[in-house]
């Protein structure tokens, strides 16, 4: 019996893109439904009543929410192809740690650069660069965070890369100057079909962010 997979998301969401990358890595077919967050669908409200947020993956009618929990679910169910987490428990713990670090830090700090009304841009920029440098250090000389292979931490971070141009523009800095190895890693990831077909165009993201800033009165 064929699996029925539905993804509820919005096109600019780096969290929704993580799920797209994971599904593409596994070669899975799915139905994508674009949500309007100003007018959430009954399906979204029913499938994620607790948070009412995207992304939501619906597998054979059963919903899963929270992007990295969804990615781990996908990895466990379709474990015969392109494993995202390593098999060794200690390596898995390291991968979970760094994915958690990306989750805890990057989005909220990045918000200070892009959506800041109170002039937190400079602090935000400084903290953001520190985070990226730490991640760059963790990457080291490996092609991917997963080592030789694209993995869990790569999925968690690569989707932020289409937002880099936006962070750079509003923060007035160059991520490539600050973290050249990390930017090289993003280009390497984009050579993968699963990543290039899942990430949004950086200029479209910038236009999207500009629109939100106008609505917030900070543009």
């Amino acid at each position, binding site marked *: 019996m064929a699996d029925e997979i539905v993804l509820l998301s919005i096109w600019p969401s780096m969290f929704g893109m993580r799920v797209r990358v994971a599904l593409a890595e596994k070669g899975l077919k799915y139905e994508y439904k674009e949500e309007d967050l100003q007018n959430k669908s009954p399906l979204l409200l029913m499938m994620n009543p607790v948070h009412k947020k995207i992304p939501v993956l619906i597998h054979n009618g*059963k919903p*899963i929410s929270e992007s990295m*929990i969804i990615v781990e679910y996908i990895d466990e169910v379709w474990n015969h192809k392109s494993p995202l987490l390593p098999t060794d428990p200690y390596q898995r713990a390291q991968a979970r740690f760094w994915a*958690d670090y990306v989750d805890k830090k990057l989005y909220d700090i990045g918000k200070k650069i892009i959506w800041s009304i109170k002039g937190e841009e400079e602090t935000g920029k400084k903290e953001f660069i520190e985070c990226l440098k730490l991640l760059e250090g963790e990457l080291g000389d490996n092609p991917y965070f997963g080592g030789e292979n694209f993995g869990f931490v790569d999925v968690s971070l690569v989707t932020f890369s289409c937002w880099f141009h936006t962070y750079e523009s509003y923060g007035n800095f160059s991520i490539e100057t600050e973290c050249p190895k990390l930017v090289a890693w993003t280009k390497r990831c984009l050579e993968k079909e699963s990543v290039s077909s899942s990430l949004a165009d950086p200029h479209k993201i910038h236009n999207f962010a500009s629109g939100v800033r106008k609505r917030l009165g900070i543009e």
Partner: protein
Amino acid sequence: MGEEVKLFRSWSSPFALRIVWALEIKGIEYEAVFEDLSNKSPLLLQYNPVHKKIPILVHNGRPIVESFVILEYIDETWKQAPLLPEDPYERAMARFWAKFCEDKVLISIWSAFIKQGKEQEEAMVAATENLKFLEKEMKGKKFFGGERIGYVDLTLGWLANLGSIFEEIVGLKIVDEEKFPLLYSWMQDFAEAPIIRDNWPPRDKMIVKFQALLDAAIASSSSSSSSSK
């Protein structure tokens, strides 16, 4: 067997307590290293340079940090008395509820305890909404893990002890038995389980500690111009 397991903890941290419970439930021998968080040891800083926090599990010399990451590591390394279910969907649900307990329930209850005035009222509203979701999730179950204590129970377990401590200090009913009968009885069942009961930090010391934290919070909020009471 030559396995060396160390747990860096503090006497009161609810996050470290999760790991104590997990190790004890699985019958794993370990050495507890108590840290004074106002004077962190060089070893703590070496094992957790990114966050500089406890708990830290050190297994055969290799550190694992962040309590959720440690719990998953323990469950994968020592297979007896599993904390997470086997089925991938049930595992995803357990991870979802654990994250909810951490990101929403804990934050809202902590705010209801530590804040004053309007902020406290808003926190209580949020806490009540969050607890409603947990109450619904408890239906037909003794523990969140089913018949046995599991991953979600360990994540929320602090509530079974700190809940009544907060209530005693600020006089606020956080988990009302009438509003949340299932959650209330879960708190009793969890707190009375032998491994849990035998590892609570001393109640009188906890009351002194959290009263001091509250006093400090009140002092700093009344010294700012936006206080309301």
